[in-house]
């Protein structure tokens, strides 16, 4: 690298200009894309948030949209639901992913097959996975509740019961644990075995080894899983919407439900209110306020990630 640098410096500014042009040429698709599809729409989101806009009429309304946010019961319901998912679903996913990965490291034969089986549901298209899952755990149609009843466990009517909708969605998310599991499995396999051997000689038991060696070594990856999990959950949309539609069963058009967040607002997530306001009611100005809320929160977690990872192990 150093040699390349000095070589470039020597033949003066013409080479440097050529280098700069070359960099620009290689980067140009992204530079354009960043401007057109990120910087501009972000600025426009701020701009439109001060207007009432329904695609035809643009009326300036000052801070009205922001004020409305504080008394919009749907938005608050959605914020509470999304918060619930962040607090419950994200940690459970990481813990379950870690448990599965731990389990896989202990299995010598057939480990690859098990790994594929655990990973597979993650790949099922979310719409398909949700429709299938709702059907399978629906007491009227699916066998799960019936089988559980035979061994004496009474399971709830998951997606028709407001108290059990979010736990149901959490179960669905645990079924699709594949991504978290694979990342944590790779991290576990990266822990040097010499550390474990040394600890075993010192008489450390399994829990001590896990606590003192495994956890500290994989903690950056755990942290990564938690933060990306939070950011994914902030945009949690498809499963909640499809589960509501499938269990309700009376949606006549894609994305429209007679009652958003069925049952009783229990599955209404924040991106869903944004979608309803912006693309069902065409309150695009207010939708921009919701988008900005999402932006600020997601940006906060992105910054944590960036700080923690120093731009992902860059070398300078």
């Amino acid at each position, binding site marked *: 690298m150093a040699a*390349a*640098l000095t070589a470039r410096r020597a033949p003066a500014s013409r080479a440097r200009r050529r280098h700069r042009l*070359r*960099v620009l040429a*290689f*980067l140009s*698709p*992204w530079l*354009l*894309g960043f401007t057109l599809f*990120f910087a501009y*729409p972000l600025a426009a989101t701020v701009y439109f948030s001060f207007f009432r806009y329904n695609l035809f009429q643009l009326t300036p309304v000052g801070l009205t949209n922001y004020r409305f946010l504080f008394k919009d019961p749907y938005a608050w319901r959605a914020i509470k639901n999304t918060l619930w998912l962040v607090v419950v679903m994200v940690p459970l996913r990481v813990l379950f992913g870690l*448990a599965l990965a*731990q*389990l896989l490291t202990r299995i010598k034969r057939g480990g690859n097959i098990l790994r594929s089986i655990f990973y*597979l549901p993650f*790949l*099922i*298209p979310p*719409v*398909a996975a949700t*429709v*299938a899952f709702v*059907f*399978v755990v629906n007491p009227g*149609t*699916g*066998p799960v509740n019936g089988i559980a009843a035979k061994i004496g466990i009474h399971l709830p009517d998951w997606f028709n019961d407001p108290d059990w909708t979010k736990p149901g969605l959490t179960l669905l998310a645990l*079924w699709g644990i*594949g*991504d978290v599991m694979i990342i944590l499995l790779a991290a576990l396999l990266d822990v040097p075995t010499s550390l474990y051997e040394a600890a075993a000689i010192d008489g450390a*038991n*399994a*829990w001590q080894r896990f606590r003192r060696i495994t956890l500290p070594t994989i903690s950056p*990856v755990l942290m*990564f899983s938690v933060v*990306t999990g939070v*950011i994914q959950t902030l945009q949690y*949309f*498809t499963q909640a*919407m*499809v589960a509501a*539609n499938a269990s309700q069963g*009376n*949606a006549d*058009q*894609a*994305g429209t439900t007679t009652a958003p967040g069925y049952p009783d607002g229990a599955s209404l997530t924040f991106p869903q209110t944004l979608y309803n306001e*912006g*693309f069902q009611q065409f309150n695009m100005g207010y*939708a*921009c306020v919701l*988008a900005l809320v999402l*932006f600020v929160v*997601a940006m906060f*977690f*992105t910054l944590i990630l960036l700080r923690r*990872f120093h*731009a*992902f192990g860059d070398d300078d």
Partner: protein
Amino acid sequence: MTGTTLATRRAPALGSPARRRTRRRGRRILYWVATHAIAIALAIMFLAPLVFMFLTAVMSSNETLTGELWPRSWHWSNFGTALTTDHGVMLHWLLNTLLYAVLATAFMLVSSIPVAYALARFRFRGRKLAFVLVITTMMLPPQVTIVPMYIVWARFHLTGTLWPLILPMLFGDAFSIFLLRQFLVTIPAEYADAARVDGCGEFAAMLRVVLPMARPAIAAVALFQFFYAWNDYFGPLIYTKPDSWTLAVGLSTFRAAHHVEWNLTMAATLLTVLPVMVVFFLAQRVFIQGVTLTGVKG
């Protein structure tokens, strides 16, 4: 769960060496059975929904509402019915999905590879900032910018089609750039330097020398992009109308359109899942390496 499996592995208590050994062996067997039993039980639970889906798909429509597990008679024709019902609307969705997925993937590769190459190999002012911005755009939810984007595409009269989802792929995809860059930095610069000494331009060096070495990463991002498009619900939901629906959006309406015919819904669902599963089993390594690359490099 980790706690219990680990607890069975606790160091044995003191005793005579022989007894300790037999006890340890007993423990080990117990431990083996415990971990494998848990693993197998979990594997069954992971596969069960898919099996139920399949069993439901081949039932008669009345039987699906009985909570019966095993089909009394096997209606294989349900798959054909699901494909051809409503004038073959599913085939239409499939074609739309393929158009979206194939074009998005091709465009993404053409535009993202040079950017990733530049971020991995060139030194220039603002390189770090550019990379941080790539990660930021990758992380931020697509809903953040959706309203103005919709307004722009509406002005170009492209809402109601899949083009608002395909055309941006000509301008680099943050996730793919990030993943490719992570792989490309691991390839020593000497290879490209050698190619340039041999008279190649930088672009030719990238195409002929570096990219063939990066084939696993390129395959991974291509697969991820393809499946992203295949699975995408939010994008098509915003932009498409029934004529341009993809499988994901169409499938979400299938249940409502066929009320109690759960067998057809399950058949349609399975048909949507099937291509993904086939590709996964053919290209498992690529997938798993790709996922690992996104998380562990940190």
